[in-house]
């Protein structure tokens, strides 16, 4: 129940663009998935997220979300390997000084900045099966200000098929908006008030840039301008 066999060729072919937040790493997929992904992938695919540009389908929500996850994918084992550079007066805690200090997990890297400090991050998963039971997605490169793979919190789907025939499973921000980035994946339903961020352009924006996210209280996708609790 561990990792899928990776196909680097597929990774090269399909790695275009980046997740909305959380790093620059992309997912890879089994060769058996390539056909379906290539059909849908316009133009970017990260972590198996398809980013459609054209309204070309009808669903229970009436439109294909720009970001959704048709298939589970395996993450690669590559990480950025840049030189750790810590200033003399870092202004924040320093738990590591080089990647060699990070030996407590897989693919350890020393990451940080003068705001967050420097600390080790590790790949927590390489596929959804590495995460806890439940609807958890392994987000490739989805770490906070770091490119390590993380198990996201429990949403209600991992792939589109979990949302029924013609359904879509999309990545959603949480209450902290783009600060924390994608926190879980949720199905779209007829009750949704928005499907993509662009649907929220007309919303009042004096209290933050609005985005479309799953609201766990209302149980549907809604526009929000929330940036952490308040």
């Amino acid at each position, binding site marked *: 129940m561990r990792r899928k066999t990776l196909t680097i060729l597929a990774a090269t072919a399909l790695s275009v663009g980046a997740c909305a937040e959380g790093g620059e790493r992309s997912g890879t997929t089994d060769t058996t998935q390539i056909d379906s992904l290539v059909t849908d992938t316009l133009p970017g695919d990260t972590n198996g997220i398809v980013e459609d540009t054209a309204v070309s389908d009808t669903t229970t929500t009436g439109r294909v979300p720009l970001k959704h996850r048709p298939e589970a994918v395996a993450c690669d084992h590559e990480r950025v390997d840049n030189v750790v550079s810590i200033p003399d007066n870092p202004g924040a805690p320093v738990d590591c000084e080089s990647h060699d200090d990070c030996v407590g997990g897989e693919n350890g890297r020393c990451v*940080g900045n003068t*705001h*967050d*400090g420097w*600390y080790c*991050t590790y790949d*927590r998963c390489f596929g959804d099966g590495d995460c*806890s*039971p*439940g609807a958890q997605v392994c*987000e490739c490169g*989805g*770490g*906070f*200000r770091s490119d*390590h*793979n*993380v*198990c*996201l*919190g*429990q*949403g*209600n789907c991992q792939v589109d098929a979990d949302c029924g025939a013609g359904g879509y499973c999309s990545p959603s921000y*949480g*209450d*902290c908006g783009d*600060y*924390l980035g994608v*926190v*879980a994946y*949720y199905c779209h*339903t007829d*009750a949704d008030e928005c499907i993509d961020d662009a649907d929220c352009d007309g919303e*009042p924006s*004096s*209290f*933050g840039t609005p985005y479309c*996210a*799953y*609201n*766990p*209280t*209302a*149980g*549907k996708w*809604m526009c*929000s301008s*929330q*940036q*952490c*609790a*308040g």
Partner: protein
Amino acid sequence: MRRVALALALVAVAACADDPPGDLDLGARYVAEPDYRRDVLVRSLVNPDNGYSALRLERFTEETWGALPVWNPRVRPVRASDLGAGRPPPDPSWAPIDLDVAWEDAALTSLGARAFTDYPAQVEPALMVALEDADGPERFGLWIDGEGDARVGGLVWAETPGGVQPAFTCASCHATPAGDGLVLGAPNHAIDYGALLDASHGDAHTSAGRWGPGRVDVTPDELSNPTVIADLRAVRFQERLNRAATIDNDVMALTARLETAVITNSGQAVRPPRELAFALAWYLWGLGDDLATPDWDSPGGAVFQRECGSCHRGDGLAGPPIALSAIATDATVGESPWRGTGSYQTTSLRGVASRGRLLAGGGVPSLEALVDPSRAEGGHRYGYGLDDADRAYLLAFLRDLP
């Protein structure tokens, strides 16, 4: 039955127009009259220009937040037997909070008490991390109330249109275990919400992870300014609500505060039943009755009056807000563009002995540290000139305020 009682209360207000209405009458007006609700809110906002006020002034209208769906879902408490078991399916025993109560003191107090421990004040999917195993609650400072299949952290399972979600109640952050039970209203300075958020996102190192136990950054002002969790038992003694002295306090202002807090906690998706918001405020107002009164005849009483009494006045041990520059403590919380007013609340010291963190940012861990001239946290430098005997008397006086 409740609606009849409410109507009768309104009739009573009209019939006795020459008498000032009591708080129960005002609560009935709050539920029934949009203009009155709006007036309560507007009067309570100290600085209409900060973000907290501006948001409410824009949206606390019948057309905007007043039109949100009322949120009173079916719930059941999270219990020890739920740990490691995932989200439970709802069953017929789950119930919303019963709002059908008479509009009188005892019934509303009872409703408020139930709401305090059972109303889902904030749905938080990240809580699943704390419920993954038996050790999860302790890792994040969630209390376990008793033995066996005890309640966990005051959490509830709430049935939403999208499925069952874990949620905080007021008691999650504002109750602490003591002896055989809980002290309701006392701050839970063990809870580490920031660590929970980080853990739910692959051990992230966000600014939330640096809040530490007992502190939460509740202001979306792009600043890191966590504030200490408040002791709600003392709320009725406060002249202002929030550490940044954002709200002029009375039971109706507190009602509006609670109603709008649920709205913002939900991402402005729902609003609480207004009867419930008032009952919760009514209940909180009564918690002060159970707090120990100051022993003014003790040796420490005299020391307190001399050293602290000009700000922490009377039996409430509270007072008017104090300018940030005058108190000279860390101004980070008070300067928030979201909640700031230029002053800090003069926090009531009733119940102070039960608090794990002191001052607005929670930077002082104990009463002893507060009056220690060598402490690192700046500001609030009172009582420093006391000799050892008077300092001991003062500390004894404060420790007698659990």
